């Protein structure tokens, strides 16, 4: 079996703020196989975006990767130099951001923003770069790409802008795309179209995807594997069918319970009772303890993530397995 596209091991990214150290990402591990889609799920503030920026090497001060490995095709990006990262960014690893209204530079034409990306990584003529830009725009379903190249971002709708951002991510047929809630800001129909399209494109190009979302129903139809994050940690990791059909972590179960219906994609998540704890002052023990229906004495200690069933990793002392059920 070929090496996975990405293997993140015990990643820790902290922000050293005046108020204290924010452990935004604290022991995150997951694997993305070649051509597969990993859904990275969790409530807002659980550290998904920071994980994505860590992978692409764009964590800005006061943040810093303080531990762990980011093995991209076997090579540790946590140790790569800025110049090496720049070669990879937009080329082998691309990222799509959450808010398409903010992603494109308002004062530069689309062609400028696309061509510069081509030229940053390939020694081709300006004309060849433009052709590549035009072809890619066509590929993501933008009509009359030749004309649209000459437009400015404000002349596009939100959905169209996100398509442009996706096209930019696809320019160099990367091995990995980190898509940070790329459809959250869009309305439901557009969401569906873009999801379908990205899935198709990833399949045809063999690109691996990390699809970040707080919407479990999006992941259900798209991802192969899923990693559920809570308070900067991965609490459950496994194949998407396994995890969604039979969640082992109480938090995952809560998330699934709060989805009104699998068919109603895009509806806001009903909240699990309680609040996400502040990452500045996490109490010792399991971070989910204060909201967990299964919390017990044992949970005052810090749970480790373990493979408790084949292919099922969970960070919990009292997971929802049958054996645990009997023990409880």
């Amino acid at each position, binding site marked *: 079996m070929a090496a996975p596209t990405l293997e993140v091991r015990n990643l820790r990214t902290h922000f050293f703020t005046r108020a204290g150290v924010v452990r935004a990402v604290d022991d995150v591990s997951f694997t993305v196989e070649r051509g597969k889609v990993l859904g990275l799920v969790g409530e807002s503030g659980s550290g998904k975006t920071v994980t994505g920026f860590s992978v*692409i090497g*764009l964590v800005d001060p006061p943040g810093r990767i303080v531990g762990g490995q980011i093995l991209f095709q076997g090579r540790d990006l946590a140790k790569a130099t800025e110049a090496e990262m*720049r*070669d*990879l*960014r*937009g*080329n082998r690893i*691309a*990222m799509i*951001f959450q*808010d398409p209204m*903010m*992603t*494109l*530079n*308002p*004062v*530069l*034409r689309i062609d400028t*923003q696309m061509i*510069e*990306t081509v030229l*940053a*990584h390939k020694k081709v003529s300006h004309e060849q770069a433009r052709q590549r830009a035009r072809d890619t725009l066509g590929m993501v379903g933008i009509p009359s790409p030749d004309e649209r190249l000459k437009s*400015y971002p*404000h002349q596009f709708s939100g959905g169209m802008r996100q398509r442009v*951002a996706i096209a*930019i991510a696809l320019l160099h047929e990367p091995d990995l795309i980190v898509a940070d809630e790329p459809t959250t800001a869009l309305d439901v129909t557009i969401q569906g179209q873009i999801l379908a399209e990205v899935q198709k494109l990833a399949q045809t190009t063999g690109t691996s995807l990390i699809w970040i979302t707080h919407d479990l129903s999006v992941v259900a139809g798209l991802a192969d594997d899923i990693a559920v994050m809570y308070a900067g940690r991965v609490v459950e990791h496994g194949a998407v069918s396994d995890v969604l059909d039979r969640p082992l972590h109480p938090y995952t179960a809560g998330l699934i319970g709060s989805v009104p219906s699998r068919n109603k994609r895009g509806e806001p998540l009903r909240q699990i009772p309680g609040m996400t704890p502040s990452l500045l002052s996490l109490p010792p023990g399991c971070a989910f303890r204060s909201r967990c229906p299964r919390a017990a004495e044992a949970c005052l200690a810090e749970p480790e993530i373990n493979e408790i069933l084949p292919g099922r990793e969970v960070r919990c002392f009292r997971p929802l397995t049958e054996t645990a059920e009997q023990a409880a």
Partner: protein
Amino acid sequence: MAVYLVRRLMQALLVVLAMSIIVFVGVYAIGDPVEILISPDADQLERERAIRALGLDLPLWQQYLVFLTNALQGDLGRSFVFNEPALKLILQRMPATLELAFGAMFLSILIGLPLGLYAGLRPNSAASKTIMAGSILGFSLPTFWVGLMLIMVFAVQLGWLPSTGRGETCSVLGFIGLQPCSAGLQWSWLTGDGLAHMVMPAINLALFKISLVIRLTRAGVRETMLMDYVKFARAKGLSASRVTFVHVFKNILIPVVTVVGLELGSTIAFSVVTESVFAWPGMGKLIIDSINVLDRPVIVAYLMIIVMMFITINLVVDLTYSLLDPRVRLENKGT
């Protein structure tokens, strides 16, 4: 675009008309020039003759109509003092003020933009903190005091630079050899001696603006660096210099150009202090002298020219703005 320009010009005409009334009435209200202009020993007959000659016997609205009719023919009245057309007097002084103002603006961009950029990109470095402290000084030191200090140090103590006047001047046509230097509008920056005379007043006038540009640029850089589109540009693998000089720079240019452009008007209008300190024979000095003797036609003409200049500058700034920012569509914009 054409529609927009026509509409702007109509608006400008209305503004000029309204301003002409305000200026005329305002200047009329500030005092009676007769007291100053006519010698106190003149007898009643002489006084009346003089008043009639100056047109001061007519009621205010008639004086205004006379002024307006003449103004439409390009005649803004004759100076009571110099007995020359007011317009000509002002235009003669205009190059001196303009070159000082543009010189100051040029300096403020040349110095302020790079310093502000640096301070924005490396906010915590010692150099940035020094730059920012310097800009506070630039804001708060009074212009006349800085001017006097410059003269004390560089003219009196060190003797490097001349302290007053415009030095040698030349006309543009003279400079390129088509005419004698003395024909046409006279500029100092076309001669070495003139440039030497310009250095200190231009720096004096620029000091405030340099500080302004530094702070604007720094604030713009800091704000823009946090934008998603800058992070996205980095995520595309662009070099740091491309991100800074294309993605960030093009965005901060918008507020900087706007403010510097609008500042140009007030620089021209209020260069009075610098012109007085350095005995720079520009419009500012002329207007101060004219106010002292209530030389109404000159004051009115000066104010009208300033009004038109502001209108022109605003229009040019708006046009530049629309060039820099594709989101601004001139057709949809009001004044």
